[in-house]
């Protein structure tokens, strides 16, 4: 299907008309077709956005449960403690603590970060930014959202019965996860967890097939690959990562399910007996799971950041009113990160018992992956150099992405150094690292993206005043929460301990943990401002036209919000998306669809494209 020809897109408005009427005319049927079982990429994107934001709340509350226990072990949780754990006198039981850490990470990774980036923003932005009227496979797209629901139900339902969720960590290492006798949380809840994760995988797989096809096939005339916004490049590479890495996780998940239900013993050695249960048949290897799991989950950490990097690049260029610095190096570093991302998984296993020689090769690859990350940081700094920086809310969040990603990237180097990792592996140093990249990086980037594209999604602005307060408080509290974790890690303070103060060496750390918990509560509380702003702006935000930020890329040429079929004209692309401040035109931006003024050769102003 050569969807890029002008003809197939002719009169998108007509097109839109045709679709809207293809559903049932009766009220409820129409509603179902338009808003529930919609095949429109924008509605699907918003469905992902709302679902993931709700789960973000759940994940945040779970985190507070963890923080409470680490700061005040065995103390009754205020307000909700007595209601939730009446049996234990309002305490968090050690069993429940393991499910808290497991479910917090599971929710945040599989129900928030991955689907909000690819599902919400990927869906919403890809067709709009490449000038297409929808995804290549709208039905598949709809299914990719609805396949999240079995996952929500499988994993969510575990909250309602003892022990309230799976408890083997989000990494689900066997034998703990594979033998029901190993822990109450390793019984049914664990099987449900594995099935849930498989559904998330199926959903992501459907999404990535769709994104790849759409980006390759459906770009508007003139939209060459090197005129794509970096957001789209990032989504493209992410989709490739998912397509190649996910099957491995899915296979591994099934193997663990059969180990549990049929006793296949892929991950269980001979004669293993847990908790005086029958010895298992064995013949397997626990390390095999770790290899398979990280073969997916290391690329997955890039799935969890590349799209944010892309969006942040677009936002920074827009509010610096300057072209992105080093467009092609940016594209190459995204690709480099993705390529290297496939050969570094062993850095999670330096002390796992994997052969130390193997550790050395993974160490070298891991060191090298810090390089493209560094190149990206330098190019972001290059982009704001010499610009006219507008400190809008989306820009503040994007700048903080850069500032915080530096910290997360640099702490990665400590852990990549194998001898140092012996000491800091499985300590709060790691916790600090991945929260700097995932929360201070990705989540802050996502907030920026929400503030930035909100006017496109809903045709109204979010409130800037409250947006800045949201930014300020989140930024301060997040650093209060996560920076000090580096210090805890330097003492060797381990993750996932229900009561760390059993150990003499960690007893002096309790006051600092209490401080961190207070910051964490402040951080979660600050999100109330965001939630209120998000919902109230839908009704009370000031209305905007097509292009409130004076940006260049195609989505800003469509109506806000775009109708079904997106564009009311056929976009034709003349240049890359970053021609801010071009001397060719009098305005300080130069939309991709704007024909060059008379007398300017159409090739000029195309530098981003070559």
């Amino acid at each position, binding site marked *: 299907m050569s969807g890029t020809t002008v003809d197939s897109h002719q009169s998108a408005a007509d097109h839109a008309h045709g679709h809207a009427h293809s559903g049932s005319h009766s009220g409820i049927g129409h509603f179902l077709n338009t808003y529930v079982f919609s095949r429109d990429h924008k509605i699907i994107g918003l469905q992902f956005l709302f679902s993931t934001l709700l789960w973000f709340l759940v994940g945040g509350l779970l985190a507070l449960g963890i923080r409470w226990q680490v700061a005040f072990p065995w103390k009754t949780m205020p307000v909700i403690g007595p209601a939730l754990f009446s049996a234990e006198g309002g305490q968090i039981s*050690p069993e429940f603590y*393991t499910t808290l850490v497991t479910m917090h990470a599971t929710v945040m990774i599989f129900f928030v970060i991955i689907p909000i980036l690819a599902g919400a923003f990927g869906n919403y932005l890809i067709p709009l930014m490449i000038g297409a009227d929808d995804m290549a496979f709208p039905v598949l797209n709809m299914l990719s959202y609805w396949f999240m629901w079995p996952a929500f139900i499988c994993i969510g339902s575990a909250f309602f019965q003892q022990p309230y969720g799976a408890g083997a960590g989000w990494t689900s290492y066997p034998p703990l996860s594979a033998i029901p006798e190993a822990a109450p949380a390793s019984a049914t809840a664990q099987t449900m967890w594995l099935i849930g994760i498989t559904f998330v995988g199926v959903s992501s797989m459907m999404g990535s097939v769709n994104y790849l096809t759409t980006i390759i096939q459906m770009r508007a005339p003139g939209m060459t690959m090197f005129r794509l916004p970096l957001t789209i490049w990032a989504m493209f590479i992410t989709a490739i990562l998912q397509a190649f890495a996910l099957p491995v996780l899915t296979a591994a998940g099934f193997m663990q399910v059969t180990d549990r239900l049929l006793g296949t013993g892929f991950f269980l050695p001979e004669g293993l007996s847990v908790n005086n249960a029958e010895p298992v048949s064995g013949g397997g290897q*626990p390390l095999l799971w770790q290899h398979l799991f990280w073969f997916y989950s290391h690329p997955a950490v890039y799935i969890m950041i590349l799209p944010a990097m892309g969006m942040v690049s677009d936002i920074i260029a827009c509010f610096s009113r300057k072209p992105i*610095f080093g467009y092609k190096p940016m594209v190459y570093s995204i690709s480099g990160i993705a390529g290297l991302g496939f050969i570094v998984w062993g850095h999670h296993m330096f*002390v796992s018992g994997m052969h130390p020689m193997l550790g050395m090769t993974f160490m070298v690859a891991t060191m090298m992956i810090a390089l493209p990350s560094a190149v990206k940081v330098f190019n972001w700094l*290059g982009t704001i150099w010499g610009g006219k920086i507008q400190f809008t809310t989306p820009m503040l969040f994007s700048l903080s992405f850069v500032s915080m990603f530096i910290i997360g990237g640099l702490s990665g*180097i400590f852990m990549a150094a194998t001898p140092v990792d012996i000491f800091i592996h499985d300590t709060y140093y790691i916790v600090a690292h991945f929260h700097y990249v995932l929360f201070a990086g990705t989540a802050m980037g996502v907030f920026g993206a929400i503030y930035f594209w909100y006017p496109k999604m809903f045709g109204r602005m979010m409130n800037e005043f409250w947006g800045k307060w949201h930014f300020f408080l989140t930024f301060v509290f997040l650093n209060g929460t996560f920076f000090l974790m580096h210090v805890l890690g330097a*003492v060797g303070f381990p993750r996932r301990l229900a009561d760390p103060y059993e150990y003499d060496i960690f007893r002096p750390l309790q006051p600092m943990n209490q401080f961190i918990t207070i910051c964490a509560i402040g951080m979660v509380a600050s999100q109330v401002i965001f939630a209120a702003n998000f919902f109230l702006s839908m009704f009370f935000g000031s209305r905007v036209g097509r292009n409130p930020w004076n940006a260049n890329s195609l989505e800003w040429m469509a109506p806000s919000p775009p109708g079904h079929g997106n564009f009311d004209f056929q976009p034709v692309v003349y240049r890359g998306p970053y021609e801010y401040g071009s001397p060719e035109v009098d305005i300080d931006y130069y939309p991709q669809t704007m024909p060059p003024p008379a007398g300017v050769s159409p090739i000029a102003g195309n530098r981003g494209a070559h």
Partner: protein
Amino acid sequence: MGRFWSILFLLVPVLGVLTFVLAINEVGPFYRHWLPVNINDHGGIIDSLFMFILYLTGVIFVATGLVLFWFLWKYDVAKNRAPVKFSHGSHTLEVIWSILPAATLLFIAIYQMNAWADAKLRRPLLSTGPDKTAGTRDDVVQPPLVEVTARQFEWRIRYAGSDGQIGTPDDVYTVNDLHIPVDEEVVLQLKSMDVLHSFFLPHMRVKQDAVPGMKQFLWFRANRTGTYDLVCAELCGWGHYKMRGRLYVESRQQFDKWLKEKFQEQEQTELKGPPAESAE
């Protein structure tokens, strides 16, 4: 407002560095909030690597943070009257800032290999064998003094008795109490009976996962007597947090005395050893 936000971003490197300075010097609330005292002859190199990377990344952290601040301050739309620098990048700069970090990273990678090999590959030798060179096939490695078997939620410990071999009738058993002699290379053999655990001695900079079905070897040379924590660092179930052991570093005489007493005690009570399989 641009001024305000620039300064907020300036605070990142300022407070970041301050935090580490306070922690390293254990000032006030940071008392005992830094690397615990190292008691392993082989652990010092890990600390120096940590500090080396800390200083190196610290320089990059501060430099990039200052550049970010300065650009925000200077190019604030409210203050900057100059036209934007309409630039799509610089080939030269890209080359420079690719090669410099690449070289630095490669240097770190190569620089630390030796420490890794010491920690995980070069097990102490009894002798280098007939060819008198270490690292060859005929090396005679030092046998383990003690075997640690992890299980939910305790460390079962077994000492090679007077014959120096594990798996013989004169073995001595304890639970959670690990005694070792000071100023000697000690080789330890690590197993797990059920799920994954991780044997972590923070003061020794030693950590190794215990994997069922596998046998791992660790070695260290303690240089200070005293009592220290033995931590489980891998989630192993609900009781993970209380899987605490203790490490007693003693002089050779004390250690021998303790071992002998323990053995006699064991004989008297006719306490059978725990059902840990013999070390083949």
